[in-house]
């Protein structure tokens, strides 16, 4: 019994526009959604720029109660899940609820809300001993990352396996990858998978300031996220989320669903090297790519496009370039590889799922999104990064890779339905 995994629906909440059409227009236009931080006053911080979502939850159908009960990142998930399910033409009420699951990732969960209430209960950090009385209702839902998958599962009526995954910045790839394995191995037939984060708050900005991981190009935020470019100086923090509907292939065919792609390959490894540092050689990411290809039963030279982690830190882009060359060999030089973080920033755990939606759209439309802001070649990053302009290209198989704090290295292979 060989169960295959189909991607039948996509939904996205991203900087620059909510929903798939706006997202795809931004990417294919090569526009950037990075700007000065407006979600709080960033005065006094080293990095004062971010890729923010202009998000009005009420306009996207959430009730006052849903808005009150759920932190911003969970609201992203509810809205993206609605879009993905509608896109898939799936009626969750007609599915066997015990065969339907949810797998969602987040790197930092409810930090923003936790910080907000911390300020209330500690009198702005005055006391170690806190006064619980000013805390707002539903704080326990921000404290518990499981709220993410739980809220979506309640919305769609899933009774099958429901999990929240938190592997730093590979959370999105891993949550979707785990879901694919669960379908392949028979634990569910339909899984709503993806990831969300809304980390743009003082504590998160300060913690990346402290290790100089983020860009300080505060006077030019639109051009601050510069993956692979020689002048890159760190990532630009983002927020958002994306959800895909994964289905067992025959299940999708039986209900006549449009199949965007097959998710045939997934692998993840640890680098056991450093919580934030990366090696020069990228051996572990390369191992993840090799195993994901083997899982998909594809040779390296079948890959037509690499969706890069491309965070725009000095070490990441070098590490990743080395890993892709190690796995794809000479084919790496012929293969376009771009980073959409140049346009939508780095939304930590969410970005892997957002990038999988970009990959699905790239396969579907035969268009490779560019790396915006790429102008100057770095000798250590010597691949084709699709500078500034989207490229039309028939695509059969695409690879998306990710790298996260904690040493996580993940890879996912998606194939166009007809090529699968």
């Amino acid at each position, binding site marked *: 019994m060989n169960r295959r995994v189909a991607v039948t629906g996509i939904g996205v909440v991203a900087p620059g526009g909510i929903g798939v059409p706006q997202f795809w227009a931004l990417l294919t236009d090569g526009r950037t959604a990075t700007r000065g931080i407006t979600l709080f006053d960033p005065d006094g911080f080293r990095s004062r720029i971010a890729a923010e979502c202009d998000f009005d939850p009420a306009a996207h159908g959430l009730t006052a109660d849903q808005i009150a009960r759920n932190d911003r990142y969970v609201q992203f998930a509810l809205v993206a899940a609605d879009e993905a399910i509608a896109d898939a033409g799936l009626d969750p009420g007609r599915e066997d609820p015990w065969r339907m699951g949810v797998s969602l990732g*987040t*790197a930092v969960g409810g930090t923003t809300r936790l910080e907000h209430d911390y300020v209330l209960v500690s009198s702005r950090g005055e006391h170690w001993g*806190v006064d619980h009385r000013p805390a707002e209702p539903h704080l326990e839902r921000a*404290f518990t*990352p499981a709220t993410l998958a739980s809220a979506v599962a309640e919305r769609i009526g899933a009774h099958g396996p429901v999990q929240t995954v938190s592997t730093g910045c590979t959370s999105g790839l891993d949550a979707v990858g785990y879901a694919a394995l669960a379908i392949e191995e028979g634990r569910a037939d339909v899984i709503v998978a993806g990831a969300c984060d809304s980390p743009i708050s003082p*504590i998160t900005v300060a913690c990346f*300031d402290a290790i100089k991981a983020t860009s300080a190009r505060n006077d030019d935020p639109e051009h601050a996220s510069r993956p692979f470019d020689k002048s890159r100086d760190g990532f630009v923090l983002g927020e958002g989320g994306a959800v895909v509907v994964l289905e067992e292939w025959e299940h999708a065919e039986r209900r006549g669903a449009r199949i965007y792609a097959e998710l045939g390959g997934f692998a993840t490894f640890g680098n056991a090297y450093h919580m934030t540092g990366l090696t020069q050689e990228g051996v572990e990411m390369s191992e993840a790519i090799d195993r994901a290809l083997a899982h998909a039963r594809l040779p390296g030279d079948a890959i037509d496009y690499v969706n890069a982690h491309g965070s725009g830190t000095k070490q990441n882009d070098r590490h990743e370039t080395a890993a892709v060359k190690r796995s794809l060999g000479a084919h790496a030089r012929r293969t376009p590889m771009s980073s959409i973080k140049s346009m939508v920033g780095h939304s930590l755990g969410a970005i892997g799922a957002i990038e999988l939606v970009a990959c699905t759209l790239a396969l579907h439309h035969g268009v490779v999104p560019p790396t915006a802001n790429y102008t100057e070649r770095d000798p250590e990053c010597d691949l084709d990064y699709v500078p500034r302009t989207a490229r039309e290209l028939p695509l059969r198989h695409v690879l998306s890779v990710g790298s996260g*704090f*904690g040493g996580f290295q993940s890879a996912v292979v998606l194939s166009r339905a007809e090529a699968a």
Partner: protein
Amino acid sequence: MSPTRSAVITGVGVISPHGIGADDYWKALGEGRSALSRIDREGCENLPLKIAGLVRGFDAEEYVEPRYLVQTDRFTHFAMAAAELAMSDADLTSHPDDPFQVAVVTAAGSGGGEFGQRELQHLWAEGPHHVGPYQSIAWFYAASTGQISIRGGFKGPCGVVASDEAGGLDALAHAARAVGRGTDTVLAGAAEAPIAPYSMVCQLGYPGLSTADDPDRAYRPFGSDAVGFVPAEGGAMFVVEDAESARRRGARTRARIAGHTATFTGAARWAESREGLAHAVRGALAEAHCAPDEIDVVFADALGVPEADRAEALALADALGDHAERVPVTAPKAGFGRAHCGAPALDVAAAVLALEQGLIPPTPHTEDCPYGLDLVIGHPRPAELRTALVLSRGQMGSNTALVLRRA
């Protein structure tokens, strides 16, 4: 689980309110002792929550090197110490010949609360430049997996389940499945440290939290006088291994992870959890090729909320039939509390030890059980044990069942 590769537990590491290490833990369980006490942590004095299961006498420096200590929260100290104990128990060494064959999987439901609160205080009282360089890696849920993997040189398919309490069992299943797909060894489990002042504030909204101020009365699961559950800290890590590789290296096999199923029935919908838990038990039994009457002992979720306790008893009746009236059910966690994902991990440790020792530890505090279960109370019960069923439910709606077989 995999039809060809079977996952066994070869090492157990425990950090619990009952003490450090599996021996102290088992001794306390066997005596039916309780470790619940008044919360005496600085900054918690004025909270309307008085009783918890606190880990006392834990010297992090004994298990964690200074360079890791400064980078990590107490929850990671617990996880690293428990991993160290489990590795030593399994005779597993760091830096394996093939690093990609050893992975780390933890469940984490509360993160690095104490560390995070300290850095939040630095930020809000002193300014952004006072936030330290380790906040980015100490607070987040992936901290323990990352640090254990780095310290041991373990590069396998590492993961983090940030689910609710039941995630503690899901992490073990995740590990067993990785073994099924070809990874030889996975360090898996969960440890949590949510008894810092602000973390406590964040938990006050949990329905069912016991605010009683008498350690003997605060958590009496299945009792007619149950008033809720108490929070706690601690957890357990395990060495989960391919049975064949364990045999090849001469490791002692402690128990086999035979079956698992997770379901979801909605946050704090305890009545609905009956169906979810029954479904999970049936699924786990099917995966384990186990008939209901083969279950020799049940380690219950035992929330201590009457509606939830009743739902759990009914779920057992639904899934096990008549056997539910006969099978001994126990909840040693009544004596050490519910440390998020750490609590079911500690239950698994108790189940492994019970299978080995042929002894069912009792449920402390509880004096009666009006739900038609054979609840083990008062004294431990000697029994021939081959198969244990471990149950867990989470505040956010998960229900999980795990079947363990004696090696």
